[in-house]
């Protein structure tokens, strides 16, 4: 019996202690009419060896690609020690540290994580994780609505340069409570949120969301945006790439007073791409609004003998105490991913993290140079960028991507589906994992693909004319 240790004798002794004849009798309080589940459609069990064979085949089908896709999930080098240690049973198979004395490992690690993440964001405090970057942004919006004492409108400004899926998630989650999300357009030349458009928005505003870098990889003028929002008595929510923050100005230092809340996707810090999850959302804020922060928070304290120790704290914010009045419904979070991230940040240190960020940026600059010689492709947006750029093609990019995939290259992410004004556009990312060879391969194969597609297109057009 997979994972069930009982011998026949154990089972019999246990049944006799309970005083029932067989296991089925233990279900005697369930109405008979309900006890007819049929799970015959599920296949029979297999062994670990058989499972290994099956999963290896499936993994192979998806692997072996050189990945130039970013768009919110980024391939980075992960030191071997990160997942070796995070996979230790003591981290992997513990749960929420309710019994603090028996969870000091996880609790101290979370305290260290909170320190690292808050410092990376230039803010005072951090929680211990939310589900992912998009849901963290939704929680940040709800938090801002609770925290902004000056604003009654529940109007939140959402730039169109925020990741389209993040915007959808925020709409799904906060849309259930009367919160109005107002889109802010971007400047077609620079790829930045339009300051002009922003200034035309009048009336009470609860919060402004500022992405850095934005979905296009472009750097927003965060100082001007932050100061404008604060002048309107709006709170500022930063949604940022945490790896980039080792190089770029941290949200807490934006403008004169700094962003009030910073959130985002923790994945770039030691979490593999892995089909989009599990990742983790981070959420940091200024000290004065810490009681509005959702999720677990760890605090340092002392034990009966005055020795340092760590506990879950400010639990009166949470669902298990406050129930309907909690700051959020979150219970299970993404602890293991934070464990990996903390080990990752410790291994890289401030310098290692900054070098990785610089390498990503330099590679992207180099790639842009190489692309200049490819006909029918141009980089749009003039704004400064981090490690992603938007390319415009003279033909639909879906075909291009499919053709590139035949050479085992994942060429980027087609974004025109979200922006009708950006026809035939592709978002491309180059991280530190890519070599110059990888880039040359991409360019060479892209040229082949474009030539091929152009010729088949011409042929198709010709056929069409002949047919007429």
């Amino acid at each position, binding site marked *: 019996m*997979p994972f069930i240790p009982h011998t026949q004798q154990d089972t019999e*002794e246990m049944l006799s*202690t*309970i005083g029932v004849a067989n296991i089925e009798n233990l279900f005697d309080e*369930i109405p008979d*009419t*309900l*006890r007819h*589940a049929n799970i*015959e459609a*599920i*296949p029979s*069990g297999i062994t670990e060896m058989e499972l290994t064979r099956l999963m290896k085949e*499936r*993994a192979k*089908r998806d692997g072996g*690609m050189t*990945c130039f896709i970013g768009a919110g999930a980024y*391939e980075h*080098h992960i030191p071997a020690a990160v997942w070796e240690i995070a996979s230790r049973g003591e*981290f*992997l*198979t*513990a749960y*929420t540290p*309710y019994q603090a004395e*028996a*969870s*000091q490992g*996880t609790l101290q*690690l979370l*305290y260290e994580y909170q*320190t690292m993440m808050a*410092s*990376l964001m230039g803010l005072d405090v951090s929680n211990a994780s939310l*589900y992912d970057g998009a849901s963290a942004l939704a929680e940040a919006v709800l938090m801002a609505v609770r925290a902004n004492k000056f604003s009654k409108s529940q109007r939140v400004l959402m730039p169109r340069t925020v990741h389209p899926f993040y915007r959808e998630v925020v709409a799904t989650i906060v849309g259930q409570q009367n919160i109005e999300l107002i889109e802010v357009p971007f400047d077609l030349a620079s790829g930045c949120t339009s300051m002009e458009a922003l200034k035309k928005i009048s009336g009470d505003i609860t919060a402004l969301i500022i992405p850095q870098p934005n979905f296009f990889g472009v750097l927003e003028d*965060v100082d001007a945006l932050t100061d404008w929002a604060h002048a309107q008595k709006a709170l500022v929510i930063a949604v940022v790439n945490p790896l980039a923050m080792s190089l770029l100005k941290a949200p807490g230092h934006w403008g004169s007073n700094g962003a009030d809340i910073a959130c985002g996707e923790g994945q770039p810090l030691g979490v*593999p791409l*892995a*089909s989009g999850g599990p990742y*983790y959302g981070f959420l940091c804020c200024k000290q004065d609004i810490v009681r509005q922060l959702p999720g677990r928070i760890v605090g340092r304290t002392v*034990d009966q003998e005055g020795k340092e*120790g*760590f506990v879950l*704290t400010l639990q009166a914010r949470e669902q298990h105490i406050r*129930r309907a009045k*909690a700051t959020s*419904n979150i219970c299970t*979070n993404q602890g293991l991913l934070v464990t990996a991230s*903390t080990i990752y940040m*410790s*291994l*890289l240190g401030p*310098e*290692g993290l900054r070098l990785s960020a*610089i390498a990503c940026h*330099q590679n992207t600059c180099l790639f842009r140079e190489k692309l200049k010689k490819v006909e029918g492709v141009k980089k749009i947006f003039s704004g400064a960028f*981090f490690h992603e750029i938007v390319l415009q093609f003279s033909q639909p990019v879906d075909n291009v991507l*499919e053709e590139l995939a035949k050479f085992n290259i*994942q060429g980027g992410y087609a974004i025109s589906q979200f922006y009708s004004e950006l026809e035939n556009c592709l978002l491309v990312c180059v991280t530190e994992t890519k070599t110059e060879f990888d880039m040359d391969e991409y360019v060479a194969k892209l040229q082949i693909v474009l030539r091929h597609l152009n010729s088949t297109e011409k042929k198709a057009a010709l056929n069409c004319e002949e047919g007429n």
Partner: protein
Amino acid sequence: MLIFEKSESGRNATSQHVRLAHTKIEIPEKFLRTDKPLLPEVSELQVVRHYTRLSRKNYSIDTQFYPLGSCTMKYNPRGVHRLAFLEGFLQRHPLSLDINSQGYMACAYELQEILKTVTGMKGVSLTPMAGAQGEFAGVAMIRAYHESRGDTARNEFLVPDAAHGTNPASAVQCGYKVKEIPTGPDGNVDVAALQAAVGPHTAGIMLTNPSTLGVFEQKIQEIAAIMHKAGGLLYYDGANLNAILGKVQPGAMGFDVMHINLHKTFATPHGGGGPGGGPVAVNERLLPFLPMPIVTKTNDTYAWLTEKECPQTIGRLSAFMGNAGIILRAYMYARLLGKEGLLRVAEFATLNANYLLARLRAAGFTAAYPTRRASHEFIITLKDEAKELHIGALDVAKRLLDYNFHAPTMYFPLLVPECLLIEPTETESKQVLDAFADTMIKILEEAKTNPDLLHTAPHTLSVRRLDEVKAARELDLVFKKA
């Protein structure tokens, strides 16, 4: 000692640093960071030793019996964890083309089918990232359903007082007012109170069955009839699915929508707090509202269903497709067990719970619901011990730690005073249960002869009982360099 206190400026794990010819960048100064973030500067060995040592201060399933009620802390198969780390799965970008994703999508699709079967529901979306997000999705679907029918007066959700805290919190996050329904003395929902509470404002009810009191809600069919008659729908909190897996389908009980906690019933690791997985399953009438994306299959090819194909969806809940790695693990667990193994889960989980309850009762502990059969978990109440011996659930819990057992869930559900909610799970042996029962008996003896031993427990861990009041009053949430 914190990792920051081991840090020395200029020390580095340089084999993890990218080699660069120069550090020139094309980013204007105004965008750049000028201060150094507070990250440790340590060697690779220091990191490995520091976190390995920290790990050893944790109790975990791999090292201790962990009967944390409501959390289903069963064995998490190692093979499953290893296989989720296959290169092809780790490298797959979530926005890969479908042609480069068929391996992952096959697993996700098959898990959707397995979950449909065990729940008796018509459709599944795997995207919710934990139980609470599944609850949110479910309640949001119920709201979307009412609204699609122009039925907009329903602004109230019913939640039994025994419910988990996430239930009322999720209903509120969906914009509902919450009305609590009391529990009767036998542990079943007070049906008369429910009858009185329902009306034209009722959107639905959230129920766990077996409930968090460790007993099967016997009047579930009557409750379903009352709710449906009033036009409300039923949400099933699947946290306790382990108790009835393969035996009773929530769909058959009359539930319209539910979540499944993959990190409980499907044995994915709890990770020190997470990640989890909270797929939602729905019956026919809620199908159009499922959160996106979902995997479909046509002629052996898998594709994603999105907002385009399902315009009535409540939308997206995560940037990509939820906790994909957890979905993979749950799938693998289901394949290892198969239909025969899945059936045995509830049987042996229930056997273990009833056996442990029988042993504890024989030793003088008080069951919270003595007339009832235990489900996969049960509650003992220490209210008499609290009165007579001044020993509470907290003291017993802390003393258990000294004996190398993780404590059961304490003080939940809120309506049972001084309670311990005990869930042994099916993967524990009789020998472990006996050792736990013997220890509980010993602790009860200590409570009579040497109560201070309990009041000041734990004695054998890296720290003694911690001062939570100080932690909340004098907030110290981040380390600051002196």
